[in-house]
């Protein structure tokens, strides 16, 4: 088991390094530059060049990358060239927001989609199964910006049940925070529901056709007991992996929803820093999201391993 953990962690580091190189290279050749972002269009080219020199942005790429990596590795995330602020507190505050939204979306959607997925799996090819599968299929199909706009107008503006600016005032209690973040989390839930329900259904169908369920039934055990004790645990394993793989998107991929609901999350920050050429912020946020994606996958795999003795006790 420990070997499994070490090996997987060993794989995360090179992948993260690869991400940092990828981001640095891509950000480097995106048109526009940090000097323009700071000085705006009306500064003369000479002024822009002077600022670039002052920021050291005109040093060769490898030199800058090495300088950034050197400081980043020892924990100094550096300052944002554009916002003249230390990157770490700023990015971590954004991370907190993104995690809050992700958590709320997950807490609401995971139980429902698991429940319905299992019900569908138990009633394979019956009307309830087709209905749930179709709903899941359709909801996942709707891009977040489409459902986001509709939800925003209907619940935010017309009915006014929820604030349209998803920024709970600092002192807000947990309940109020959830209330304020519910609106932006709805589009996320719609997309997630499809993924999780379908995987839960597939897991259940496969398990119900397995040999050990046949044994359990033919041992004369009551059906409900067979489902709860034997089927459920093995059916949910693949679903945990799916949930793990969605966390990365939930934390760093929501630029669209964050723009619509003016929610200061990581997604929008990555987008802004990519377009605005703020490399230190871009690297920090992209690596953070990549790390979260990989670690959540690893956590999911660990959980699956723990629940599945075949892996836990492998010699």
């Amino acid at each position, binding site marked *: 088991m420990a070997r499994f953990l070490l090996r997987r962690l060993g*794989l995360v580091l090179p992948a993260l390094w690869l*991400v940092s190189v990828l981001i640095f290279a891509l950000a480097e050749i995106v048109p526009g530059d940090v000097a323009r972002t700071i000085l705006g269009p009306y500064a003369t080219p000479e002024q822009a060049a002077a600022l670039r020199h002052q920021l050291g942005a005109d040093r060769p790429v490898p030199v800058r990358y090495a300088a950034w990596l050197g400081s980043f590795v020892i924990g100094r995330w550096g300052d944002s060239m554009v916002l003249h602020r230390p990157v770490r507190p700023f990015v971590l505050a954004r991370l907190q927001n993104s995690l809050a939204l992700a958590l709320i979306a997950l807490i609401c959607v995971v139980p429902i989609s698991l429940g319905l997925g299992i019900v569908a799996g138990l009633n394979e090819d019956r009307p309830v199964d087709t209905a749930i599968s179709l709903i899941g299929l359709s909801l996942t*199909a*709707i*891009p977040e910006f489409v459902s986001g706009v509709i939800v925003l*107008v209907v619940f935010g503006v017309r009915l006014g049940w929820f604030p349209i600016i998803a920024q709970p005032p600092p002192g807000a209690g947990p309940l109020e925070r959830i209330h304020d973040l519910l609106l932006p989390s709805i589009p996320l839930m719609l997309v997630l529901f499809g993924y999780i329900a379908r995987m839960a259904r597939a897991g259940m169908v496969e398990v119900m056709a397995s040999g050990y369920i046949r044994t359990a039934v033919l041992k004369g055990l009551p059906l409900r007991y067979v489902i709860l004790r034997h089927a459920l645990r093995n059916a949910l394993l693949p679903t945990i992996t799916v949930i793990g793989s969605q966390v990365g998107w939930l934390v760093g*991929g929501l630029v669209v929803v964050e723009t619509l609901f003016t929610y200061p999350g990581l997604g929008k920050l990555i*987008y802004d820093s990519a*377009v605005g050429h703020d490399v230190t912020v871009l690297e920090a946020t992209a690596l953070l999201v990549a790390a979260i994606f*990989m670690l959540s996958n690893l956590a999911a795999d660990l959980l699956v391993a723990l629940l599945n003795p075949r892996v836990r006790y492998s010699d």
Partner: protein
Amino acid sequence: MPGRLIRNAAFLAGGAVVVFWIFAALEWKVITPYDPFAVGPAHPLAPPSGAHWLGTDDLGRDVLSRVLAGAAPVLTIAPTATLLSLLGGTTIGLVAGFHRGLLDDVLMRLVDAVMSLPVIIPATVVLALVGRSTTNVILAIAVLFSPLVARTVRSAVLIEREREYVDAARLRGDRGLFIMFFEILPNVTSPLIVEGTVRLGYAVFTAGTLSFLQLGIQPPSPDWGLTVAVERAFVQIAPWTVLAPALALASLIIGVNLAADGVRRALAE
């Protein structure tokens, strides 16, 4: 196989929607009541009426015509991008799955790295890098989807390479390349087709999102994602300008997914 497909209601429904949009994409010049590009400053944001069944947009253009014409860009980008990603992905998957060893690890780490970033970020940077045009959008989506295809193909190849007919081929002295492309590839087409149809659904989804972020297709294209992005400013006073393209996009994606689901069931039986 086709027999089972026809009987599957979901496949028929999905297929009908997809065929409708394909027809629209090919024939919009003929079937649109108005010229989708003709500007009508006199009547911007007019509500649905006899003259304009789905009303007009902020520049007075007929929304229905633009929605019908809007099928064309998506239906050129998504399938092409999916096809390219299948080609790229299959090659990577085959090589990684068959050769194992260092090559496999490196490729898979690359796949992890690309997949760890939410699709939007590399897409943003790539499109900002090479500039915005339909071909670049296709390339961007193809580049982003290849790793996912590679991962599926690799897992299928890992199973096939252990099969005895591969040993027999090695025994004859056939080279790795021949075995990969002539012996193994024909037997991984089934997961490939399933992956392809699923990718197609996501390609339409991603193309729409890229247009929404105004990174993809350029105005005055009637592309749905772009239209939703531009028209969402008028969503309160002229919701039809946003709802029409949004529902069109959703219907196409659902159609493709239903059809894909049908194909998968037929193959699985």
